[in-house]
């Protein structure tokens, strides 16, 4: 993909207390000539400064709202900047910037509006067994809830077209946003494709990852939303 084409691709990185790694993540994305917006979600460390110093556009939430809220802020900002493609990318360094090109190419060649990364179609060396079991259970649950035939429902690496982004309005501020996003994709009836990606687990990313208690909280959040209009 040419550097000029990458300029229409905005990568949204939601970051909370990611000062040790955010500079490296942003630098890697900028090396691929993507436009990068980091949403500093009320961090009290140097996350915002590190991201800015690395060359990202930084938007700051005054207080911590959660990853879902930060992603929606970033998506909205990218749309306002006339992005043709919007990518969500985790701040903890577990994704590969080189996988973005594969996602964008899938959107272009398969004429769909969402390209969703899958570690189970791709590779995830050093994934702990407990994490694998938790993700498989979440995938089983989400497949039944949304009807989308996916293999990895909680992968933070996704790409969407501008049209796809206009159908996304995340109301779940915290971790339940991943399931909510898939629900909104299903409701939009727009095309989607799963793309193999690699997740590189590190001690840092594993420490920041989801736990069983988070899964229960996600279930409570999703149930509560069903009761609201």
């Amino acid at each position: 993909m040419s550097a000029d084409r990458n300029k229409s691709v905005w990568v949204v990185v939601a970051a909370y207390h990611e000062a040790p790694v955010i500079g490296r993540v942003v630098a890697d994305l900028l090396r691929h000539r993507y436009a990068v917006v980091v949403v500093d979600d009320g961090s009290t460390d140097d996350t915002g400064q590190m991201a800015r110093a690395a060359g990202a556009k930084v938007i700051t939430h005054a207080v911590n709202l959660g990853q879902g809220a930060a992603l929606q802020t970033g998506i909205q900002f990218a749309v306002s900047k006339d992005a043709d493609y919007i990518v969500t990318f985790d701040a903890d360094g577990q994704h590969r910037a080189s996988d973005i090109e594969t996602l964008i190419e899938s959107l272009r060649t398969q004429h769909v509006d969402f390209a969703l990364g899958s570690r189970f179609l791709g590779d995830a060396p050093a994934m702990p067994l407990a994490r694998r079991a938790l993700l498989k259970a979440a995938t089983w649950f989400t497949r039944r809830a949304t009807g989308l035939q996916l293999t990895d429902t909680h992968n933070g690496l996704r790409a969407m077209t501008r049209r796809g982004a206009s159908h996304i309005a995340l109301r779940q501020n915290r971790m339940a946003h991943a399931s909510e996003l898939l629900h909104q994709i299903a409701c939009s009836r727009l095309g989607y494709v799963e793309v193999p990606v690699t997740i590189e687990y590190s001690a840092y990313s594993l420490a920041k990852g989801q736990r069983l208690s988070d899964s229960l909280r996600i279930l409570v959040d999703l149930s509560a939303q069903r009761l609201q209009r």
Partner: protein
Amino acid sequence: MIAQIGLSILLGGILLYAWTEWPRAPAIGSVAMLATAAGLYFVWLPSHASWLAAEVGIGRGVDLVLYIWVIISLLVMLNLHLKLRSQMELITVLMRNVAIAEARSADVEQASV
């Protein structure tokens, strides 16, 4: 009779509250209205509460009324939780718009320098 009137006024108030909450949380509003209507019914016809309690294996009619009261209380608590969530959503939208506006004004300042 005085207790019945007092309870009826209280339950009537809850019924009104559930009705006003129905458009925002239909499931909670519907169940709360049903439970409150059942409460009103049993306040004025306690013998029916005793009969129903025996039928469903609760024992005494007064226990059935107590259970209904607990259900109403839990529903009101759940509704308050949903209201707090709605408030949080509004705060999020407000904070998002402020954050994006600040980022845009920083862009404008940078461009003008």
